[in-house]
């Protein structure tokens, strides 16, 4: 299994004391992209946050390019109701280390930095990719993908529309020079036209970077990824390869019966 780009081994996690997902095991081969599909509130976003180190995994391991990203020691559990040991317990994950390794997470409806301009935001994103790739080329590529942002460079993020913010988010992800890019519902809440524009850009990013995409639109995922994982109640409940992938309606019928 050492050939995998990203490997999750029996990963469990959540927000203390509530466990959100358990025993997630999957391996991504180099160059392949995967999708996660499942109802809202079943732990997809929490899983991505755990992989990127914002949350500590409860158990299990995360390996990227064969290197373990989490500390080996077990999660420090809170044993007393009265005393708070957490100060003394080192975190199991360090988000900075994950980014340095080249695993970049574009969060769901990321509000970014409201008082920074687009130019400044892209410059901050560039720090992430330092030393791994030609940052200027990536910046130019991102601006070519989203020509709309070029006109908005001097504008503060808080004056941008939701779609433009999403574009900045994805552009930041690209500029951070990812070896693997995780996109959490990149087209959430966008108008059909913007959705189309963003989807085209993501397709273009896919040509050079493998992706993990969470989305509710199977038809969008179908054209983008190689393997689709169905996520249900915090577990992976199914795995569909590209050639067997059903249409959105078929899948809905498969999962929820006729009513949908």
């Amino acid at each position, binding site marked *: 299994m050492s050939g995998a780009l990203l490997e999750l081994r029996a990963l469990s996690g959540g927000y203390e004391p509530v466990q959100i997902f358990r025993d997630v095991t999957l391996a991504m081969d180099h160059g392949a992209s995967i999708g996660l599909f499942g109802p809202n509130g079943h732990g997809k976003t929490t899983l991505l946050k755990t992989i990127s180190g914002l949350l500590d995994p409860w158990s299990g391991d995360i390996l990227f390019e064969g290197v373990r990203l989490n500390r080996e020691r077990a999660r420090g559990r809170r044993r007393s109701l009265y005393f708070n040991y957490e100060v003394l317990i080192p975190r199991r994950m360090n988000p900075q280390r994950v980014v340095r390794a080249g695993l970049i997470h574009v969060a769901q409806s990321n509000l970014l930095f409201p008082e920074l301009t687009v130019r400044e935001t892209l410059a*901050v994103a560039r720090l992430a990719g330092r030393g791994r790739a030609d940052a200027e080329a990536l910046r130019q590529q991102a601006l070519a993908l989203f020509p709309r942002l070029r006109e908005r460079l001097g504008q503060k993020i808080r004056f941008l529309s939701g779609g433009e913010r999403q574009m900045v988010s994805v552009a930041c992800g690209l500029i951070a020079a990812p070896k693997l890019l995780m996109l959490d519902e990149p087209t959430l809440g966008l108008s059909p036209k913007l959705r189309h524009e963003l989807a085209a850009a993501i397709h273009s990013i896919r040509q050079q970077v493998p992706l993990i995409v969470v989305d509710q639109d199977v038809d969008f995922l179908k054209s983008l990824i190689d393997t689709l994982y169905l996520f249900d109640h915090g577990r992976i409940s199914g795995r569909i390869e590209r050639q067997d992938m059903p249409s959105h309606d078929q899948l809905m019928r498969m999962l929820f019966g006729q009513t949908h």
Partner: protein
Amino acid sequence: MTLQTFLFVCLSGVVLGALYALMATGLAVVWTTLGIFNFAHGTFIAAGAYLAWQLSQGGHSAGFLPNAAISIASLFAVGVLFHLLLVKPFERKPNAVLLSVMTTLAGASIVEGIINLVWGPRSKQLQSIVGDIRFAGIVMSYNDVVMIAVAVAILAAVGAFLRYSTIGRSMRAVAQNREAAQLLGLNVPLLYALAFGLSAALAGMAGLFVGSMRFMTPSMGSEPLMKALIVVIFGGIARFTSPIYAAFVVGMLEAFSTYYVGLYWTPAVLFALMIAVLMIKPEGLFGKYERSV
């Protein structure tokens, strides 16, 4: 009121404003970046002044500028230490804001106790720059002029640092959205520590000013701290410049109220005016209440 008096009152308002601007900016840097209020900011002022005083004693003083530089640099270190010991352990805990009120107050009394222990309660004064300039019929002391010029230069430098430097930009990014900053690989703990250090260094700078204007006592920072708090709430923290403008407004108000109403009632007048302004503009005089540096 003659023109001379008017100009004189204006000058003292600007001097106060420069002092408050340094203080309030230091407070606002921590407030916006970490989301907590540092009650030890006042004792950082005292620490900066006393360190500079100590360095200026004895035959081997290196001169004013090196002394000032050493005491400001030490204050930076004190700020970083403060953050590591008193603020960081409670980060992201459910009641971090309240806990940090307690720990920074505790830190303030510890630092004050140390100052008392080392230097004693007798008041001291930093040497001020002797000489004055006569201009348009009013007398300005060199000390005041240098103070205003240095405060403006320092604040401009800090503003440029936050705006144009990589570290400053990253500090603003962390202040505005911690999670997004983490996802872009910024070193959040380091940036928090730097923000605290920068804030303490600004307080040390203010301490040098206070020490050359007034007598130094271990609790010399508490009155300027209160003023700085007022300034930050009054001005809002929408932009880096909001507390600076507000500082000069408050300084002017204080100078004129001292002249017209008298020293005794000036705090009451200031508070009354500010409450009236905040009733109409609750987000602060210069913008929205947002954490943005």
